[in-house]
């Protein structure tokens, strides 16, 4: 376990000393800030929107966090591509393979390092609606549910990207393929709208459907379990893939 933390620490450090992480956070913040302002103006203009059923936290939280998932879908592959593909290309992966650590330690360590980045992104996303605290009353539960949903969503994105990153030695290929994979799982939602026998299954497997509830402030353990299982599955597949590579 201490090895996982050692690897996670180094991974997080490497993410945050690289300009990529900061560029991603800056762009994320810029675009979400733009959306945020837009939402505020909308809300203020149409004063009839605020009533007993739709508070400012509902409106801002769900609008902003709904949009954030799309953005995160675009940027997570950029961060996950470095995890294995880039290391393999530069040869530095040998350091981990020759060290007395198991493949599970390596995968979990790298994933936890990435989680540190996710938490930084989450902090920025939390601060925006929280800044409204000074002018109005907020429903913190709703915002917390939305943030938890976002974190779970990012973990799912991250684990899938991590797995794809173990498949290739070209970072760009890793980025493109993980983007495609995430979008495909995302778009399963479309299939669920069609009228055929398996439609509910596709609806259940889609990444988006489980976020809807949390975005609205509904904490459902089955949604949480979905994301955690999704993450665990891809991390396990990454371990299997790395094991195959040595043989």
């Amino acid at each position: 376990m201490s090895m996982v933390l050692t690897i996670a620490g180094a991974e997080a450090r490497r993410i945050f000393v690289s300009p990529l992480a900061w560029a991603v956070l800056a762009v994320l913040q810029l675009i979400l800030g733009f959306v945020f302002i837009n939402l505020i103006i909308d809300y203020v203009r149409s004063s009839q929107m605020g009533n007993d059923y739709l508070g400012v936290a509902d409106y801002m939280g769900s609008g902003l966090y709904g949009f954030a998932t799309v953005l995160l879908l675009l940027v997570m592959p950029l961060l996950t591509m470095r995890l294995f593909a880039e290391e393999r290309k530069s040869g530095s992966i040998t350091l981990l393979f020759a060290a007395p650590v198991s493949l599970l330690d390596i995968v979990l360590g790298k994933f936890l390092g990435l989680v540190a980045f996710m938490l930084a992104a989450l902090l920025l996303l939390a601060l925006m609606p929280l800044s409204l605290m000074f002018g109005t009353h907020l429903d913190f539960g709703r915002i917390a549910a939305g943030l938890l949903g976002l974190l779970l969503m990012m973990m799912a994105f991250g684990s899938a990207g991590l797995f794809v990153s173990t498949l290739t030695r070209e970072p760009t290929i890793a980025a493109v393929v993980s983007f495609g994979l995430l979008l495909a799982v995302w778009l399963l939602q479309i299939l669920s709208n069609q009228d055929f026998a398996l439609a509910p299954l596709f609806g259940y497997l889609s990444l988006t459907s489980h976020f809807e509830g949390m975005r609205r402030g509904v904490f459902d353990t089955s949604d949480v379990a979905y994301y955690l299982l999704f993450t665990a599955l891809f991390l396990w597949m990454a371990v299997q893939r790395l094991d195959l590579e040595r043989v």
Partner: protein
Amino acid sequence: MENAEILIEARGLSRRYGPRFAVNDLNLTLRKGEILGLLGPNGAGKSTTMKMLAGCLAPSSGEVFIKGISLSENATLAKRHLGYLPEQPPVYPELTVDEYLRYCAGLHGVPAGERAAALLKAKQSCGLVEVAGRLIGNLSKGYQQRVGLAQAIIHQPPVVILDEPTVGLDPIQIREIRALIKQLGQSHSVILSSHILPEIQAVCSRVVIVNKGRMVYSEPLDTVAAQGVVAVIAGFRKAPEAGQLEAIAGVGGVSALPGSALLRIAIEAGADPREAIVEASVRGGWGLYELRTEGKGLEEIFVELTSGDIAIHDTVAATLPEAA
């Protein structure tokens, strides 16, 4: 040396890519205090062998034991005793030397309290003290190579595997690194590969030559040296008749060395007529200006074993039944 602890043992190590054998039935035993030089032409299987010994590549068949621990069954425990510098130093360009080495120490299980001391020792050994705070990506190739080397020895492993450790270094650094390897060899065992024959001769106690994935030679370097003098090359201002030289005891035959004015004087087995030649030259006024021995050195052995078609036919024959 014979009864020292066995640190690395490889039995019947093979690695194949499709029908082609990169390494074929290689056996190695390395005892404590030995420095083993792995020699071979490009593509002979040196790096593949080292990857397998370091546990970065699983062999197709055969097994590796490190300090008696099987690398396939108990990889994590076995790798504790291992330091490995691959062909490309496994460094992170975005970290400083200190950050990187501290991470490596942690990764190799150096206790937190001893990390600072381990870091300092590795930096001193590899001459990295003055660049400790710089980003690895900004260092020259030679310094990156040294960082890679420091990484391999920071946890003081009993077995150190170095894949071409002196590539990209300047002559002074090469001398320093060679001295370091020799020093390591006293308390650890070291396997290193190199293209540079004098380097192997300077530091290794044993040499293994691989060609086309097979081990073709494995002898202590003492044996190489003892194969001894087979001829003397001599240069005379006023060259004597061949008969006059052949009259000296121990001289087997005289021939002109192609392309030069020097003479090659073959020596009868066990004899050493060099002093007699000098005396004869002084007496006869032949004007001896050069006298050196021609041994069957590492280079001759290497060229003999790795060039020519014999070895290729041999390997093709060996792989055919497998391919069929």
